[in-house]
């Protein structure tokens, strides 16, 4: 997948790159990686789930995990120096809130397209909530599918759910930080990227 292709996708999905401010654009390869370290950026408008995820993520012992928390992109310029190379950007979307989705969508503009080569994933909470309009889930799916990113679902209400969501993020993070031999972020994303499922309301067998 070439970078041009990614740009193309971005345009097709209506994410306008007119707000292309060089300085605040987050880039995947502008810095050197740390030794046996992985950096993950959790972007969540509501700043709720990211905290519990962060606490669980840093518990990992096999590699040193650094977590950066953000409400939205772009990230403040003054942290540019201290900020390490981000290996994985996770957009956390609470499906019960339209704002949460819109914020994630808007934040995508400040992401270097290079990230879309396997270093972005979406994590959705409250997908099983009865009050969620199906259109919103579809919209999130479409977004993730258009960007070829994995779409993970998480049960943020239960401790088990948080633990497991953390594990899943870690397994992606390790690959995207280059810590898994024989696997690259792009390879993993080709296996996991989201697709828009057709309407499965009526599984027709005839």
């Amino acid at each position, binding site marked *: 997948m070439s970078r041009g292709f990614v740009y193309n996708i971005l345009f097709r999905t209506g994410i306008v790159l007119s707000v292309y401010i060089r300085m605040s654009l987050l880039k995947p390869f502008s810095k050197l990686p740390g030794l046996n370290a992985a950096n993950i950026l959790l972007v969540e408008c509501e700043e709720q789930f990211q905290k519990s995820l962060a606490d669980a993520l840093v518990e990992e012992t096999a590699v040193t995990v650094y977590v950066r928390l953000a409400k939205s992109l772009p990230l403040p310029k003054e942290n540019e120096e201290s900020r390490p190379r981000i290996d994985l950007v996770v957009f956390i979307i609470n499906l019960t809130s339209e704002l949460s989705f819109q914020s994630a969508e808007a934040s995508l503009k400040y992401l270097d397209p290079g990230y879309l080569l396997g270093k972005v*994933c979406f994590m*959705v909470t*409250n*997908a*099983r*909530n*009865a*009050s969620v309009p*199906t259109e919103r*889930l579809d919209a999130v799916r479409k977004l993730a599918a258009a960007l070829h990113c*994995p*779409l*993970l*679902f*998480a*049960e943020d*209400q*239960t401790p*088990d*759910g948080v*633990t*497991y*969501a953390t*594990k*899943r993020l870690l*397994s*992606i993070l390790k*690959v995207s930080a280059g810590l*898994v*031999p*024989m*696997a690259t972020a792009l390879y*993993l994303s080709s*296996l*996991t*990227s*989201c*697709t828009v*499922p*057709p309407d*499965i*309301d*009526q*599984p027709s*067998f*005839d």
Partner: protein
Amino acid sequence: MCLCLTECFEYFSNVEMAAQLNLSGHPDSGLPSLTDQSMSSRTSNRSLRVAEKERRKNEAEDPSVLALQYFYNVEAGTPVSGNDEVERNLVLVEQVAYRNGLSPEAISIMLEFAMSLRMGHSLCPRVLKCLIPVTVVPQEAVVRGVSWLGVGKIPVSTQVLFIKWVLTVFDMIDAKDQLRAIYGFIFSFVSEENLCPFICHLLYLLTSKQIVRVFRVRKLLELQSKLGRQPFLLNLLSLYKVFCPELVTFSIPSQSKSVFKNHNMPWKSALFAVQKRNGSQVASSISLASASKDGTNRRKRKRHHLEIPVLRSVVNKEPQTETRRRLVPLVQIQSVAELLENMDHIELPAQMGSLLGSSLALQYLDCVQDESALLRLNFWLGYALHEELLFCGDGASQNSEESLQFLNKLLSTQHFLQEGFSSSEAFLYKFLNVWDGSLLRPQILGLLSNIPVIPSSQIERLLFKPLMQLFFTSSVFFKCGLIECLNNMLLKWLIWHSVYALEDDLDISRNSHTSINMTLSGFKDSVMGLVDFVGRLASSGLQLEGCHSLLLSFILDFYTMVCDTFLKYGLPLVVMPPPGVFYPALFATDPVSVDRLAFIMYRYKVNLTSAKIQEKLTDQAFHISRQTFHEFNNYTVYMVNCLWNSKMFQPGMGVQLGEELLLKSNVPQYWTSFDLVHHPAFMSYAIDFHQKCWPGKKDIDLDSIKHSKPWSWYLEYLFSQGYDGLALFVQSNIRARQGNGQQGDSLST
């Protein structure tokens, strides 16, 4: 018994008689005297009545009895206002009702009093609100109540209140047959706008397959065009659709949420209190009828759909021998023999979910020809799963324990029936799309392994897409779990096939409950799709997890089954494992994996050989593609070369490396690295063998094992360690054993 009749007992049985007589068309027949005739015909609720009587005797001289008598006898047109007597008696009845609940007879009297409007309609709501049943509600009373609706003088709000009351106590009505008989009459009220939602709910509870008719569907559609897509109409229609899909052709969104609300508000707290207070009594009187379980579940069920109802029918009637309908409630059946005897006239319980808890009921379900029982159960199940698991609202944690038990129950039911429910299948397809991979994992994977064969055209989008994403983003334990689940799924498909293929050759569509029409080639396509899919998961999974030996073990489990599809399950299909599985298994560091691979290759050979023989015997037998033989030969040759001949890097083989590169690696005798002596999995055995063989030798020279004598001893030693797979593989592939350097033979295509 007659001797000890108290006044109230006599009185009550009279009332019931009166009600029955009235029903049969003799209104206002007054109080017939208690005769032997009426005693003998009054068989219903006998045991209950006795219990009731005992209780009543203790509260001798209960003024509420006199109050009830007043309401029974009161003349039509008696004024209400300023009538202290009515007030006093009503208060008495209310006191009894709110404290202990009303007996079935009292309910009959009070309902009749209210609905007949003998004293106008001002008292109606008050009376209706105090109709708290202590045990059951007599069906006759409800039927009479409904019939009064037709008279048309009752204010709409009271009519609504009445229907709400019927809905609230629906489970306590002692039989439903007469209510079903007047289904058409009840149906006629749907056109009244205010009543419609409640009538729809009542109809929903009463609907059975025979009742669904074109004209009713048409009427509902007509209403829908008038009132819009109202949830209550949709829900009733969707039930009709379940029973008769051919009559309701348009699509109904299956996502419709909980549509029928609980209308039990006016009675809820009172019912709750009465049930709590009478807890023991209710339970004991019900245990007469229900063979199982405590009464505590009943209250809970009102709030949670996942609570599996206790199998019970409130029909307390002893089996009536001479009556015309002779329906036997399922709960009264105690043994299989009884079940078989009454097969054709079994009354299904009102709560279909209760079937899940009873093995006899499941046996009935399994062999009954009429589809409607399964349809009803499926409908209930689909609703319960959807409401409580898929869209549980918030607070996922609070009902997880309940969900767990429910799913376990469902799983054991499916194991009992040895097939999945279509509603749980539909639920899974949706759930997989929002699953986090951890919630109720063992249960979900268990249900998943039960799903019936999916046509290959659907399998990708329904199953593979969501599973693929979950698989690759989850931990290695999830990966193992999923492979095991798919293994079970394949096993069930193969068993299913072998059972139905035996019955009649190719047409395996004649399957009992699934509506899939499937030909043999369609089935083969699905199986092939599944095996390919696991192959894809396995290759990439092993790569990502660094050939995790646990994962490898689960994958080899899968291929142990796949390699035997022809001989064990009679499916003419042989699929080879992909290189991504074969090579990691061959180069695995644990001897067990290599041994299992050898066994799998041996079974492949046996299967392919017998397939070939059969192909020669019967001309029109299936054809195994040259590609499969080619793959098999390649693998076998490579395996033999590698393990036996110490020729790892032969040109034309699966693994090739440039000569210079190999020299650069500075590995001495690199070609021997994976023979049976130097293979990392077996090296410890080789050293052990070496020490045993030449105990005095200080420096170990493993190459010396390769001489023909020690080599055969070494093999013997290896096989004696339990590596049967390896033994079988060697025996079947290597014929002559004079020294080193034999070629493994290969199957010709």
